[in-house]
């Protein structure tokens, strides 16, 4: 969409007018504000009915599967619990050493010692045993589906949307489904974790198999390979690195889901520990337990990604066979030695309770001290954000400006000045940039004055659908209309808008801050070096853990949720911006330099426009991360769809929870498709391609 006046601008202008008209009509027409109750389609009830039928009639089947699956979990559990901690820790360190070397081995050792000394070793092993069972299942399943999708276009067309749904529908929504079908217990965590972690394996399998160069396949064929030989000896080994990346992603997904699934309880694992400590407001303990999860995630991530990177340097693999034997001997020998040692020195077998060291109490005390002494500052930050950003976005300036909040009453002349000012800014934008920017400003001004949740739903439906149509074509427009229409007729539009409101603020702040940091990091190696490990840590951290520090200081509420979402969603914004700015075509940069660009001109007129498609993908990821965190943030008290999902889970109302979960997935998918389409448009305009 270039500048100048084309028909699209008039369409948009018409839509702005319609929106204003609908807002004017709002006080006189009830159904514009709230979709009429008696017209709500009771999808939730139907789902519950189906569910009841399933449970009564085929429930035995699921229960049987559940009973079968219990065994391997129990088996691994018993082994991990029975082994002296020193043996297990030794084996972990050895694997870490093989995957990446001494440094990771030391880090693994430190992590294990932390778990032992802090007293969370048994809980950690329970979590691990679930991961250990779910990952192989997810890998096998994912690899199989990936291969199928690789060979059959039709299978691919069926599988891909399924993956989208599994990865976007919040876990809380289908935890209940699994709970009802498979019964209470560790199996729920296992199945949820398999469902959540096999999609990345499918994707990586397809990508890996596809990326094998045609000439490698042809040379395999010309070497006289049969179909089986071609697959196992050419395709699979050539895509090994991508497959190992799939293993890395699947393992991380599995761990995070095991943690989330512990919300249903009864698992005695580390996720449950964190959650129950948060609920008891024992922040020191919850942080210490959270750190266990974070360490576990980091070790698993580094080990699996280390294996993936290693698979590329074939030089290091010389004499691999004899090395493999030697390693096996060391592993077995070391394990036996440590076992014997543990029998002699009991501390190496089970760490005694009275030797546990927990700084939780002193942490709690210092936190209390902090909160008591900085109460005023904390409150001030909260109030500022609440009165001047969150509330206006939610219920509009119209609703939020009052003597109590802003210190004055909203008079008619205030509104007129606001309207006039915004129109002026809009006109300026039309003059300086193009008409689309102006329309964007106008729409934003309207939202901010009337409030996102107070807008008439037909107007928003119209705006979103039209935007989707303009950006992504007729199909996306229609899809958006139907998707949002589903949310309207199921009667959860108000909650949906609460989710959109919280997530939008978080995404906008994350993106602005993140892009700023990314620009800074792209131009400054030190900043980049400082940010990278922070980003890595935030990204591997299970979402749960990110909540803890914010809840500790700001207590439960929307503001805490907002901060937690920002902390998580800022990562892709930083990453993609830096990546986009650092990977521009050198020819263009040199040409611009030779034209005499100043540093500022270079950044704003050359680099950022060229990096924009990549930054848009960053925005896309920011939104996805934002929504993922939003779901978890329901734990600290928000009011949107995510809360409906959570309540559905805790009340055992499957239908309500699933509908809300689907609505969240719909919102996520619309945002995803729109930002992707926008990035694609820009890419084809600039004739570049971003992967």
């Amino acid at each position, binding site marked *: 969409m270039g500048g100048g006046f084309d028909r699209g601008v008039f369409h948009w202008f018409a839509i702005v007018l319609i929106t204003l008209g609908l807002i004017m009509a709002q006080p006189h027409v009830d159904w514009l504000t709230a979709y009429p109750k008696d017209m709500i389609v009771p999808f939730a009830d139907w789902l519950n009915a189906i569910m009841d039928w399933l449970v009564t009639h085929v429930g035995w089947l699921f229960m049987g599967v559940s009973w079968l699956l219990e065994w391997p979990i129990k088996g691994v559990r018993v082994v991990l619990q029975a082994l002296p901690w020193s043996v297990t820790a030794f084996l972990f360190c050895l694997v870490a050493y093989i995957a990446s070397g001494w440094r990771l081995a030391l880090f693994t050792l430190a992590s294990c010692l932390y778990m032992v000394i802090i007293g969370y070793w048994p809980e950690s092993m329970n979590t691990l045993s679930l991961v250990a069972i779910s990952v192989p299942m997810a890998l096998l399943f994912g690899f199989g589906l990936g291969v199928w999708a690789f060979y059959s276009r039709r299978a691919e067309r069926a599988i891909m949307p399924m993956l989208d749904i599994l990865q976007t529908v919040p876990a809380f929504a289908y935890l209940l489904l699994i709970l009802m079908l498979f019964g209470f217990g560790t199996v729920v965590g296992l199945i949820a974790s398999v469902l959540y972690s096999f999609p990345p394996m499918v994707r990586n399998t397809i990508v890996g198999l596809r990326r094998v160069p045609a000439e490698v396949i042809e040379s395999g064929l010309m070497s006289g390979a049969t179909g089986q030989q071609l697959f196992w000896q050419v395709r699979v080994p050539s895509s090994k690195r991508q497959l190992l990346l799939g293993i890395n992603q699947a393992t991380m997904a599995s761990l995070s889901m095991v943690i989330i699934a512990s919300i249903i309880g009864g698992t005695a694992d580390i996720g449950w520990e964190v959650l129950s400590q948060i609920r008891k407001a024992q922040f020191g303990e919850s942080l210490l337990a959270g750190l266990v999860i974070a360490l576990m995630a980091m070790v698993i991530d580094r080990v699996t990604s280390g294996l993936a990177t290693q698979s590329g340097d074939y030089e290091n693999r*010389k004499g691999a066979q004899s090395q493999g034997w030697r390693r096996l001997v060391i592993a077995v020998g070391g394990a036996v030695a440590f076992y014997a040692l543990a029998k002699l020195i009991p501390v190496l077998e089970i760490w005694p309770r009275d030797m546990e060291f927990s700084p939780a109490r002193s942490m709690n005390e210092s936190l209390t001290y902090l909160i008591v002494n900085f109460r005023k500052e904390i409150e001030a930050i909260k109030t500022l954000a609440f009165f001047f950003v969150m509330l206006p976005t939610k219920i509009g300036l119209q609703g939020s400006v009052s003597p109590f909040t802003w210190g004055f009453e909203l008079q008619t002349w205030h509104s007129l000045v606001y309207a006039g000012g915004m129109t002026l800014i809009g006109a300026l934008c039309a003059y300086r940039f193009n008409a689309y920017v102006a329309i964007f400003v106008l729409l934003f001004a309207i939202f901010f004055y009337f409030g996102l949740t107070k807008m008439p739903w037909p107007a928003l439906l119209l705006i979103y659908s039209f935007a989707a149509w303009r950006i992504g074509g007729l199909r996306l427009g229609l899809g958006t209309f139907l998707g949002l229409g589903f949310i309207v007729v199921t009667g959860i539009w108000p909650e949906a808008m609460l989710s959109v409101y919280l997530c939008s603020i978080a995404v906008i702040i994350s993106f602005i801050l993140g892009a700023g940091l990314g620009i800074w990091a792209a131009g400054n190696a030190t900043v980049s070096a400082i940010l990278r490990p922070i980003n890595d840590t935030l990204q591997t951290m299970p979402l749960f853990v990110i909540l803890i520090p914010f809840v500790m200081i700001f207590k439960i509420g929307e503001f805490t949720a907002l901060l937690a979402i920002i902390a998580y969603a800022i990562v892709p914004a930083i990453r993609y911006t830096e990546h986009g700015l650092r990977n521009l075509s050198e020819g263009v940069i040199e040409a611009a330099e030779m034209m005499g660009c100043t540093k500022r001109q270079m950044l704003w007129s050359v680099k950022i426009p060229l990096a924009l498609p990549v930054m848009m993908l960053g925005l896309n990821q920011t939104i996805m991360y934002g929504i993922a965190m939003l779901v978890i943030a329901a734990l600290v008290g928000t009011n949107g769809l995510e809360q409906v999902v959570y309540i559905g889970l805790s009340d055992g109302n499957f239908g309500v929870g699933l509908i809300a979960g689907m609505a969240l997935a719909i919102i996520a998918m619309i945002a995803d498709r729109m930002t992707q389409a926008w990035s694609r448009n820009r890419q084809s305009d600039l004739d570049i391609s971003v992967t």
Partner: protein
Amino acid sequence: MTSKATASTDVKLSCRNVWKIYGDAPAQFFDAGNGVVDAPQTLAETISSSDHIVANADVSFDVHVGEIFVIMGLSGSGKSTIVRCISRLVEPTAGEILLDGEDVLKKSDAELIDIRRHKMGMVFQSFGLMPHLNVIENIAFPLKLQGIGERERYAQAERVIELVGLQGRESNFPNELSGGQQQRVGIARSLAVEPEVWLLDEPFSALDPLIRKKMQDEFLRIQSVLHKSIVFITHDFQEALRVADRMAIMRDGAIVQVGRPVDLILNPVDDYVREFTRDVPWESVLCAADVAEAADGPVSGLGRVAADTPIDSLLGYLGDHADGVAVEAADGSVIGVARAANVVKALATGSDADPADVRR
């Protein structure tokens, strides 16, 4: 042109009216599978205008035993497709591929695998090496697929490693090798099964010019030892001249002209072929026999040269001897006389001489 090998005239491999059409229903254009049609050109145009892509149109040629047959063409001319049709990496739409008189296209999958395992070897432009195997494993890979034991296949691989001069590199992985070395691995792998037909798809196009020249020399050296029947694809006319016994020029999927390089240079069928020959250093391509004309008098007083002497080595002599030089065949009989004027005339064929520049 110097003849590189004394190729026999026995046909090893033969393409007969091969067509490759891409599109929704390519078979609809052919009644019979053998690809014989009355007016190939008209058919190709019909196919193109009905939303199908003609990759190969009515391609026919023979490759003799022990001969290097070069297929030359610009990108998109269908030369890579035809070599893939021969190896059945691409399934032709119509036509016949005869290997030792038997139609490869009629072979079952198992028979095809057998042919690839024993009779054909192929070299690829971007090498097509297995990234996860080291040099010797890559070269022994076709043998491994046949189920040959490790000791035996490594021994055989070692022989071809020597042939291509990669000794000492056995345990390196492809990403540790230069382009030239990688292609040596590709060549060695294709030779490991001792194929009779050797297909090379732009083997040296991805290499730097200097390396390319060296590899061409190596290639000719290997061929002088092995005498394979070769199909060699290239887009580089100079390369074609260097290696070809005979060559075909392709355009839009069809063959424009087939012949010895010198035939193409002296008698290009159209402007397309002439365009390629324009920048050829004629004096190094033409030999004495190509410019000689029948003697119109006694040749006893003249100097004598062999028929395959390149002209560039005669230029000085001809400048000093206006009577020219007698050209004799291998058996000592005189073919004719070459004079400076003949050379000038032959060289002029390739240049755009404009008579208008000449003032009277």
